[in-house]
């Protein structure tokens, strides 16, 4: 009898545990499986992003949206950048990816190719969102594949030249200005060296960095990395090579640390510890620089120096995309489109971490940082080139860094390196 009782209890426990597990799964299912049509039940959406710092802004947007649309309930999920893609890819494999998600241009090709993202053109028209004229053209194009819009531009980043006033004051050299050319940059480096800098302090840095350094000058100089049809690379062009060589020359002249030194200690680490007079930096670095007590209050920024009369800049950013197999596709699209609207962009902009993609909301980022010449980032945003991407972008960047280091190190000429890059890069585009 006693034994049987024990057995019964054990069985009971098993049933209870099993039931709770099932219930756990079930409630999740019912949330996303209802069609959003029933009036008494709320439509539940999941919204996934990767930045801890931007969570409050996103939550504020959700709150505002839920107020206007009481039938919708949105759950915000956040993870680290690296985990984010693994999670999305795993959940998309299982058919349960978040309804609305952040994407960037680096992933747009492979995601649209696999049919993970829903096209948004109809939803954009229904939502009355005018992309053209309201967003920088490079940002709209960045999310168009086969003529269809796959994401609403969320924010963007461009580059500027940051400088450390303390180092300039100590050397008695005039600060950089917005109208600088590449020649001015070189002359200033020479002047800083001539006037004498402290030990381990360099005027400038030239890491093997595509987005913040050489892509800008490659395109400003009339070269390109990937052609428009994405069938060929442009490493063999003289213009492309000149756009890279100008940075290598600065290392050779001693204006910037050698490749080995910059590999050991990054440009950002040097600038943030006050060991670098000038550095190029994306707008996403602004918060980090300002939060660093060693340099905060001593820094400012100007435009990237012009080259051949052109204003080099590289624009990149992210967008709101919708999962193609979302169970509430319509509601998800509606929310994504709303995120591109004036109200949402204002909420995001006022939080101050990024440039909102909408033209009329760009100024919020500058407003949040009156101590810096933030306009340097946006003065020529119309001319900025989008980060060149393709299906094998990650592999191409890897190849590029791998080969270019021989040119930066001086063990091969840039011409030799570019010959290899052209051959192997073209093979990746096939």
């Amino acid at each position: 009898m006693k034994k049987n009782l024990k057995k019964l209890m054990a069985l009971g426990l098993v049933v209870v545990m099993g039931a709770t597990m099932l219930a756990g799964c079930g409630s999740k299912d019912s949330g996303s499986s209802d069609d959003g049509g029933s009036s008494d039940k709320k439509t539940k959406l999941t919204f996934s992003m990767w930045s801890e710092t931007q969570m409050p802004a996103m939550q504020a947007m959700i709150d505002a949206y839920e107020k206007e649309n009481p039938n919708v309930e949105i759950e915000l999920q956040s993870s680290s950048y690296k985990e984010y893609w693994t999670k999305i890819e795993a959940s998309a494999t299982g058919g349960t990816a978040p309804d609305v998600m952040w994407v960037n241009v680096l992933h747009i090709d492979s995601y649209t190719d696999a049919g993970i993202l829903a096209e948004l053109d109809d939803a954009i028209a229904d939502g009355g969102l005018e992309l053209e004229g309201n967003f920088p053209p490079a940002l709209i194009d960045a999310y168009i594949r086969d003529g269809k819009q796959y994401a609403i531009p969320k924010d963007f980043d461009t580059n500027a030249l940051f400088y450390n006033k303390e180092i300039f004051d100590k050397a008695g050299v005039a600060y950089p200005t917005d109208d600088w050319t590449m020649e001015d940059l070189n002359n200033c480096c020479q002047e800083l060296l001539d006037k004498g800098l402290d030990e381990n302090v360099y005027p400038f840095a030239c890491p093997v960095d595509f987005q913040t350094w050489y892509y800008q000058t490659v395109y400003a100089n009339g070269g390109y990395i990937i052609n428009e049809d994405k069938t060929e690379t442009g490493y063999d062009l003289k213009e492309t090579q000149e756009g890279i060589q100008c940075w290598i020359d600065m290392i050779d002249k001693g204006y910037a640390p050698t490749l080995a030194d910059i590999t050991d200690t990054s440009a950002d680490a040097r600038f943030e510890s006050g060991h670098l007079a000038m550095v190029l930096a994306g707008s996403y670095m602004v918060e980090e620089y300002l939060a660093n007590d060693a340099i905060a209050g001593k820094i400012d920024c100007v435009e990237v120096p012009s080259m051949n009369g052109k204003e080099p800049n590289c624009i990149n950013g992210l967008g709101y995309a919708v999962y193609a197999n979302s169970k509430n596709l319509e509601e998800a699209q509606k929310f994504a489109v709303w995120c591109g609207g004036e109200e949402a962009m204002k909420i995001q902009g006022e939080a101050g971490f990024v440039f909102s993609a909408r033209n009329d909301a760009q100024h919020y980022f500058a407003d949040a940082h009156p101590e810096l010449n933030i306009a340097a980032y946006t003065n020529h945003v119309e001319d900025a080139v989008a980060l060149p991407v393709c299906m094998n972008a990650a592999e191409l960047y890897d190849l590029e860094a791998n080969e270019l280091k021989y040119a930066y190190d001086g063990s091969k000429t840039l011409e030799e390196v570019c010959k290899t890059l052209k051959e192997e890069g073209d093979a990746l585009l096939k």
Partner: protein
Amino acid sequence: MAEKKQQVKVPKKKASRREKKDWVAGYLFIAPVTLGLLVFYIFPFIQNFWFSFNNVNKFNMATFCGLENYSKMIVDTELYQTLWNTLKYVVITVPVGLFLSILLAALLNSEIKGKSFYRTIYFLPSVTMSVAVSLIWKWIYNGEYGILNAILKVFGLEGQNWLSNQSTAFYCVMIVGIWCSVGYNMIILLAGMQGISKSLYEAAAIDGAGPKDQFFHVTMPMLTPTIFFVMITSIIGGFQVFDTIYMMIGKTSMAYESCQTMIAMFYRYGFEFGKKGYAAAISIFVFLIIMVVTAFQMWGQKKWVNYD
């Protein structure tokens, strides 16, 4: 011979009810681990094997491509470069690591002061996150601000960028690998040493063997099963080395190619380039190599491992 045959011929008794009940209990006991093994190891292994014959994108969408991945892999010079690097890593770190582990274990097995203190500090690297370890060592090797160069400077020697120099970077990484694994191996060897019967040493002492003879003629032979275990696990670990190198050697290091291991190559194709099929083929290749090497060791152990 005759005896053995008789044993085989013993008729099997039918299992009684009680015995059957025991079996059920037994299976229930191993079920959690077995299920875990099936779900997290056996199934992924089979899936990985299947993937190696497919083109697989980021979303695990597979399209069959036969032996394409393998035929591509066999002519990929990168594979042989990484294989060579990995072999070099194993051939150097395993013997050196083993030698140091035995030496440390022997020293800590003797009567010295502060024994448990030393045991703790030598074991510490094993419980420290490898990412943290790598970052610290990266600073030690730093060309401009590293402590290694600072020490060399005191002696009037010229430092360098240790992790960018093709002739030093890989050895620097190996040192970290050895430093990380010595403590763990030492503990296992120490346990092996303490399992050796005291009477053997007493007998050896009576026969006039000094500490040196005792070590080579009592400790070492009795320790061979433990050494064998440590060797097998270190060699497998060596073939799978990845994290310290990934953390320490940047993409723009001039020594990048000469430091890339097979698992690093697998990682890049699988997780950075989104070519999971090709990555699967690489991992199968690594698996085969480890299997052959381990089988060879299992066969070779008869010649030197002492199980008496």
